[in-house]
């Protein structure tokens, strides 16, 4: 892997290649954002923003066709691309519209998970760094959120994207999701939020309800805890070694009430095996709960959630007009492409294997005989893409190919579901 060859200074030279040689999957991108052309002008009224060389930021970009999008991007060579909302009018003409009538109408429901939000519970890295140990947090976050969005909220079309350094995004693309109001987005985000509070808050997860102290834990939490428990021992006790040093043990103890803290301080003098230490903690909590008149206390579960549960930025999800980094953008510091994540292979997803722009440009130069044959066969089948024959071959020769495939599957699933909807509708119409 020569991903370490990426040098940010080369970005201005590599980007034109990226956009021109159609690494950037323009036709799929256009298919995605047109959503089957069901709504008129859906693509044309979508806002994009570009960050250009020297950090010049331009908003309210919009395009009337795939061609125009391609041409503009190849001309402007943006360092970063953001996607905004679908507006009532073409964003590029927003100044010509009567004030008050230019409105954001629809946008995907999005979630942003940033590893720096976990800094208070990560021992291995901090700030912009990540490693294979703390990547588990992303794994847990994706699993929990994906399940909740699909099973609880009934969403089907979720695109998870790795951003190239320390975060992931989730784009929920269902029709219903795109039409959600600000209040609804905020309610969904709050439903999914369990870790609350900033630097001044020590205990960030509170599960017991002071108004209904004897109520059992709700179903939503039981499901989540079953996921977290699967990872907790290995990730938190072993990898993060939260009971390994005095400092980290103190952090854990700070989340517990005085009496349990005292008892543990004593028993930890003798017991040094972290697994057993954790068991002792859980026993004490259980004992306190059954003796207590105050009802359910879930300190051990709260600790698990504080160390593992996904931390979302609610503000990103709330706004209909919020601009969010586009998939297939290039990360300027690491050079990695923001690629879709295949959830079926989530356990083996390695953020350090995601190709950088320099890698794929390099791969482009290496001719591969066997791949060329395969492509020729496919070209004969695909009449439509005959004109783009040359272009398709380009990215398929690189490590980017498998990630674009994930994007293709995502688009196919949406197309199938749209077809299903239309059939349903026409069936209803034929029935009287």
């Amino acid at each position, binding site marked *: 892997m020569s991903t370490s060859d990426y040098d940010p200074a080369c970005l201005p030279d590599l980007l034109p290649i990226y956009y021109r040689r159609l690494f950037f999957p323009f036709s799929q991108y256009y298919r995605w954002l047109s959503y089957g052309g069901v709504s008129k002008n859906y693509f044309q009224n979508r806002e994009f923003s570009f960050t250009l060389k020297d950090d010049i930021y331009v908003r309210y970009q919009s395009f009337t066709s795939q061609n125009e999008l391609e041409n503009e991007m190849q001309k402007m060579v943006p360092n970063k691309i953001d996607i905004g909302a679908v507006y009532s009018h073409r964003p590029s003409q927003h100044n010509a519209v009567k004030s008050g009538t230019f409105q954001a109408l629809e946008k995907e429901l999005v979630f942003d998970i940033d590893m720096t939000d976990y800094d208070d519970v990560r021992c291995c890295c901090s700030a912009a760094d990540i490693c294979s140990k703390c990547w588990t947090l992303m794994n847990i976050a994706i699993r929990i959120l994906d399940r909740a969005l699909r*099973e*609880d*909220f*009934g969403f089907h079309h979720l695109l998870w994207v790795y951003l190239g350094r320390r975060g992931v995004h989730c784009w929920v693309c269902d029709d219903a999701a795109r039409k959600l109001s600000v209040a*609804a987005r905020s309610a*969904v985000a709050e*439903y999914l939020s369990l870790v609350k509070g900033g630097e001044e808050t020590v205990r960030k997860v509170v599960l017991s309800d002071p108004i209904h102290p004897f109520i059992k834990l709700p*179903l*939503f939490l*039981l499901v989540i805890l079953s996921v977290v428990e699967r990872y907790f021992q290995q990730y938190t006790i072993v990898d993060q070694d939260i009971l390994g040093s005095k400092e980290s043990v103190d952090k854990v103890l700070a989340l517990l009430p005085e009496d349990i803290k005292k008892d543990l301080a004593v028993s930890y003098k003798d017991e040094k095996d972290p697994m057993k230490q954790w068991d002792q903690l859980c026993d004490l909590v259980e004992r306190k709960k059954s003796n207590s008149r105050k009802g359910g206390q879930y300190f051990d579960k709260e600790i698990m959630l504080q160390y593992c549960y996904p931390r979302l930025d609610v503000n990103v999800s709330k706004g209909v007009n919020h601009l969010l980094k586009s998939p297939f953008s290039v990360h300027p510091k690491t050079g990695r492409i923001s690629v879709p994540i295949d959830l079926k292979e989530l356990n083996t997803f390695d953020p350090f294997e995601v190709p950088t722009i320099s890698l794929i440009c390099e791969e482009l130069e290496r001719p591969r005989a066997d791949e060329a044959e395969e492509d020729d066969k496919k070209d004969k089948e695909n009449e439509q893409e005959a004109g783009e024959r040359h272009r398709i071959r380009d990215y398929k020769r690189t490590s980017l190919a498998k990630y674009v495939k994930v994007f293709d599957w995502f688009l196919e699933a949406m197309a199938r579901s749209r077809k299903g909807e239309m059939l349903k509708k026409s069936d209803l119409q034929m029935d009287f």
Partner: protein
Amino acid sequence: MQFSGRRKKLIGNFQNDLYDQCLQFYGQPPLENISLTEFETFAVERLKLLKTVENVGVSCVKNSEQYTKKLDAEISSLNFPHRGGISEYEKRRKDHISHFILRLAYCQTEDLRRWFIQQEMDLFRYRFNCLHSKHKTDFLHKNNLKYETVSAEEKKNLKDKLIASSYGLSGTKVEEHDVYKVPFQDALDLVRTRKVYLLAGNAYIPHHEIVTIVLNDFRTRLSKALAVMFYSDLVISLHCDWLSSFVPLFFCYSHAYVGQDYSIQKNIGKISLEQIDALSGKSFPLCMRHLHKALRENHHLRHGGRMQYGLFLKGIGLTLEQALQFWRSEFVKGKVDADKFDKAYAYSVRHMFGKEGKRTDYTPYSCMKVILSNPPSQGDYHGCPFRHSDPELLKQKLQNYKVSPSGINQILELVKGMHYQLACQKYFELTHNVEDAGFSLNHPNQYFTESQKFLSGGRDIKKEVDMSQRSQENPASVTHPSQANSKQAHEEMGDLDSFFQDE
């Protein structure tokens, strides 16, 4: 749905249909003509009700026993529809009409809209919760709230999950009562707090929780209706119509005091000047105690302070002669000689008593007026100390007056939450050493009267007498409150303050 067609056909039966339910969504405006008196009275009484809803909502935990009792009492005493009695036609008509009248006033600004929606929602929630289960279902059907009920079989399959997700739900409840299936977008409050079972984008709501959904609906409809009304031709043309004389009145009503106006002094002449010092410590609200102290110390008060304190003194029973003597004796100790006092200040005292100029007998300021208008500046001592004093200074003052530290903290908490009148009520409770003041503070003179009542031990008996008197007065003297209130309203619109020069 045949529902809308039915409405167009049977205008005659329309009214009966509309008022056959205790509670309504206010979907249709009233279609009849009413007298001006009824118009004003209905509006004022609903405003009183909404103000009580606000006060009770702040001082008690919502839906607690205390909350319910207080609201119950207010709703009956104001003759609004209550718990679905048979002969409630008149009350329901009043409920309907008064709601729409207040819409006219409260659609005007963002703040007014927000306040109105909040109180109407709380009132609606309270009344909906009072309905019997059957009436709740009737209400949903009548208002076309198409919330799908879950089939018995589906209920059986989901029973455990439902019980695990909703507080207060037992197995029997699930079997016996309906469970509604609602798209999650219509149940955001329950979703946000995770108080509901969600599956595939639908929220499964047990019968007793349906009020949250209905409230959501209520809020959306009312919010939209107010916005539409604001932009409608009706409201724009109101400014040119003969009705336009009422719209400004409502701005005043929105912040107007609508209780007793203390212009008819029952205790006139019963207070002697020598008592005032002692009374200021015992029975004056903090603002007046503060003003009195400043007057004694500086032998002077500026115009705002003279008005606020002077009218208060009138309200507690000082005669004009007493007032003149009081002010003169104090000012003369300062930089003002007797002659100057007679020339300049005496006039304004007489004016306060309605003996000069347009001879309006001005009424003492209510708390609302003190809090909202004419904020004090450097050198002023008027205003509401809970509102206008810096918290540190307020704390010091309370310490000087020997209020306990925990009491001071409670007061400061209320001040932080902007509950100035409750803070003053708390001051009453602390200085009179009583747990519950037993009244909702709205007026400095009310503070004084209640305090005197309490100190003379006659409180409990008096309270009952007052309640029965009120309910007797209400139907008979329907015009009286409105007259008194237009008077106060006119004053507040008038420019008394700018009449005099400040020194």
